[in-house]
């Protein structure tokens, strides 16, 4: 479904991502793990068109989407739920969700998505006319995921959805990611929480200083010595 080849991203002189290759097949959960500053978010930002790649190519469903702008990429079916939630603080929950569907032409059928999102996150239904900025951190994360689902993507990019959440909520978010995936969504998941991320994933990539250091089936990575020592705290 997604094929990344030789992708590099630079911020001025900083080479944040260096010639990485990555593949995601339809229906998978792929986890991307790595230390702070390894280049995970930058990879996602390049995929969704927020930053321009310095080199390499990205192919999505057979189309070369390298260098496309963010709008075309959303329309192609990739939705990016960014690090740090990035919801619209002075808009209501409903308005935030509505903006998630900004590129959709079939605005009459949005209720299907609203229902599904409120089923995943009932608290959002209660808070629907509350300003995004007044939600708790966990609620904001739910809103950010819900908003990303509103465009009816084929591929969902999640950047550290468990960041800063209480353990119980982390559990729940991971459960919901699995549910969303079971209903057919392909997911690329960035996580600091390597153990949990690999546990729900089919495959994983480990990034170190801008490059892919290790890759393989999630179960293999969970038993890989290097990964265990560096990311699973053993």
């Amino acid at each position: 479904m997604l094929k990344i080849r030789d992708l590099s991203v630079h911020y001025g002189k900083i080479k944040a991502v260096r010639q990485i290759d990555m593949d995601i097949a339809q229906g998978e959960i792929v986890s991307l793990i790595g230390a702070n500053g390894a280049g995970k978010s930058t990879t996602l930002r390049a995929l969704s068109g927020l930053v321009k790649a310095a080199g390499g190519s990205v192919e999505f469903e057979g189309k070369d989407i390298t260098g496309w702008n963010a709008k075309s990429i959303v329309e192609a079916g990739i939705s990016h739920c960014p690090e740090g939630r990035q919801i619209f603080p002075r808009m209501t929950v409903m308005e935030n969700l509505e903006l998630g569907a900004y590129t959709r032409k079939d605005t009459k059928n949005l209720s299907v998505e609203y229902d599904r999102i409120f089923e995943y996150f009932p608290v959002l239904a209660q808070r629907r006319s509350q300003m995004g900025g007044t939600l708790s951190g966990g609620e904001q994360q739910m809103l950010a995921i819900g908003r990303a689902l509103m465009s009816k993507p084929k591929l969902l990019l999640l950047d550290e959805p468990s960041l800063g959440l209480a353990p119980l909520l982390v559990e729940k978010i991971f459960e919901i990611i699995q549910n969303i995936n079971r209903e057919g969504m392909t997911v690329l998941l960035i996580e600091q929480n390597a153990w949990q991320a690999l546990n729900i994933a089919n495959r994983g990539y480990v990034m170190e200083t801008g490059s892919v250091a290790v890759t393989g089936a999630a179960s293999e990575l969970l038993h890989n010595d290097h990964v265990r020592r560096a990311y699973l705290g053993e």
Partner: protein
Amino acid sequence: MFQEFVQQIVNGLVLGSTYALIALGLTMIYGILGIVNWAHSELYMLGAFVGVFLVVHLKLPFLLGLVLAMLVMALFGMAMDLLVFRPLRSAPEMNMIIGTLGISIFLVQAAVIVFSPNPVRFPTEFSDAYLSFMGISITLQRLMVFCVTLVLIALLNYIIKYTTVGKAMRACEQNRDAAKLMGIDINRISLITCAIGAALAAAAGTLVGPIFLVSPQMGLAAISKVFAVVILGGMGNVPGAIWAAFILGLAESLTAGFISSYYKDVVTFCILITVLIIKPAGLFGRSQIEKV
């Protein structure tokens, strides 16, 4: 005494309307494009000249002339975005400041050459019509400034609150990257913002041109007050700018009427400085309560 008071209130509302219409575009362009547009009040000046051309020379009815002047200046605002703002957007901030100051100087001088430096009169069918009650008489033109401003504010409020474009504008203002991730075309939203901002400034020029005089310097005379309004309202804050405009407009005309017109600017900037000391984000500025 009472009549004098009402007269100054009316003057204050006219002044406040002018400030509000100019400040709205300035604060929106700052909020959405991140640009401090020093040339913004030249759109007000040019709008007034376009109004003179349409109403005095082509003899169009005033309200039609007003709408057309707004349309002409909306196109002008879009051209300004395409030719100046867009190329400068990724440049360092100083380039942008020099760029918009440059446009201001260019437009003023161009107006001096094209329209002559002398102030021109802008008589309309409403200039000599009076509304009198309780011994107070107000020209219809003054009344209209305030009423049209209210209509335009209501219209803008509707657009920003309820339309898709308006929601996209707010999204760009609140979080530009997230707006891009929603698939919002930032360039298109910037263009629309500049068009709306320029049209509102043009409305101000055409509305008050008939009350004062129209000259190439009228923009320069207004810009410092308009900046005071925008800062007082909180940079990028649309309702804040409206309230601040009327507060300053009323304070200024009441000072001019009851103390001395020498002090009106003093009062404006005293209010500004006092507010900035007590509440640095502006009277209606958002305190940093947002969780990110």
